[in-house]
């Protein structure tokens, strides 16, 4: 290798837990000769190869696209969700942000609604169930119609798009002292509340998604802002304001449903 860049050595304190039932604990590992250009997950890959060579269990972590767009990866590095750098997923975090000789504490997302499966992997299916409760529109779309047939004010389109960038990684829940899923749920609610396609089920969606959020055992929002600060997609707290407003409006204005046709 022609690279003149100096490699760094790190100490890792990693949460190891055999399965959901077992008691977990920290174990120390050395990450030697780490290239500053490596991503955090590539660094862990190298540590895992060493572990496999020694016949030890590799450290389990979730990952998929490694491009920062799928929402699969994520764990705590020294108490920060996805590590110290803002607007970044852990797969897009590079080792150049760390100093030689640093000790890094790696922990899984901690929330009662996200049970730990093994090591740094947690079960985030609670998010899937929140989506299933109303994070969609029930129309058969057929062929996409001409975009210009659906007028959407530019500010609404921009705001909806920003909400839609949520990748559902769970960093908001992980960084919240109450393990609240308010930022995630509200991003989905605001995304569809701002677009014409979302209007028909708008009130029901707010009622159902917030009910599911509570049913999953997530906490309440204390407005600490930790979620938005940790969010790799910079989802704003204004989404939570929208969710609260939508739920209040839906509670007041929700029409009763009638089954069957006219009975007169």
């Amino acid at each position, binding site marked *: 290798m022609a690279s003149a860049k100096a490699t760094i050595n790190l100490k890792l*304190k990693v949460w190891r837990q055999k399965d959901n039932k077992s008691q977990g604990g*920290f174990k120390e590992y050395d990450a030697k000769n780490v290239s500053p250009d490596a991503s955090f997950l590539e660094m862990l890959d190298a540590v895992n190869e060493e572990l496999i060579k020694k016949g030890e269990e590799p450290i389990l972590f979730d990952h998929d696209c490694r491009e920062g767009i799928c929402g699969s990866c994520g764990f*705590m590095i*020294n*108490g*920060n*969700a996805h590590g*110290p750098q*803002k607007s970044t997923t852990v797969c897009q975090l590079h080792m150049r942000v760390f100093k030689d000789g640093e000790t890094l*504490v790696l*922990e899984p997302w*901690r*929330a*009662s*609604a996200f049970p730990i499966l093994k090591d740094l992997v947690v079960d985030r299916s609670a998010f899937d169930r929140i989506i299933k409760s109303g994070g969609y529109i029930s129309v058969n779309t057929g062929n996409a119609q001409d975009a210009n047939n659906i007028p959407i004010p530019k500010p609404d389109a921009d*705001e909806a798009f920003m909400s839609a960038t949520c990748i559902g990684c769970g960093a908001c829940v992980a*960084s*919240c*002292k*109450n*393990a*609240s899923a*308010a930022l995630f749920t509200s991003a989905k609610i605001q995304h569809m509340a701002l677009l014409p396609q979302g209007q028909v089920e708008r009130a029901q969606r707010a*009622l159902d998604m*917030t*009910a599911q*959020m*509570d049913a999953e*055992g*997530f*906490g*309440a*929002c*204390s*407005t*600490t*802002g*930790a979620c938005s*600060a*940790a969010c790799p997609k910079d989802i*704003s*707290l*204004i989404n*939570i*304001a*929208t*969710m*609260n*407003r*939508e*739920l*209040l409006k839906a*509670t007041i204005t929700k029409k009763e449903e009638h089954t069957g046709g006219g009975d007169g």
Partner: protein
Amino acid sequence: MFDFVKSTVGRKYIMGISGLVWMGFVLSHMAGNMLILVSPDLYNAYGHAIVSNKPLLYGAESVLVLALIVHVTTAISLTIENRKAKGSRYAVSASGEKASTLASRTMGMQGSVVLAFIILHLATFKYGTHYDTVVNGVQMRDLHRLIGEVFQQPGYVLWYVVALILLMFHLSHGASSIFQSFGFLERKMQKGLRKFAWTYAIIVVAGFLSQPAYVYLLRGK
């Protein structure tokens, strides 16, 4: 509607509304008490005017007591659920740009001290020693004399300062949070909101603190 009140979002509305009642009260309480800096007679006459207007007094007292009970019990129920939702804590806490403010993370602790302060404050003043005085021929309570006595005690003044500084943090976080809880928050408001909340909290607490400071430092001896 019952589902709304039970939901986490609904209970944040309840926290906000009950908090707002007290935000209005502390501001007016502070403003009225500034009369202590003007004259003892004016201060006593102001107090007498309030307690003489029974419908206003009992009406305001019942709204305040109700709001306080609702605020505290809702806070307790949310705190219990939030702790359960978090389960276990991290070995290391967040730092740098991803850390949240201490004031926002310790609302429960601040609130507990403020509650203790309210109870002690009522015991000291409202239900404290009753002195009489006559202002313009009207017999009334000499609250000014009691305040003069109480604020000569350094221990009480110190406790007052500590409790009010915690109240300042509590109010600053509450005053900005209600905009999000009530659903009024807009992107363009975000920057100004913290300034607004801190201005409000500092005005209330600086006003309150000027009163014992005036009595202790300038009126003493």
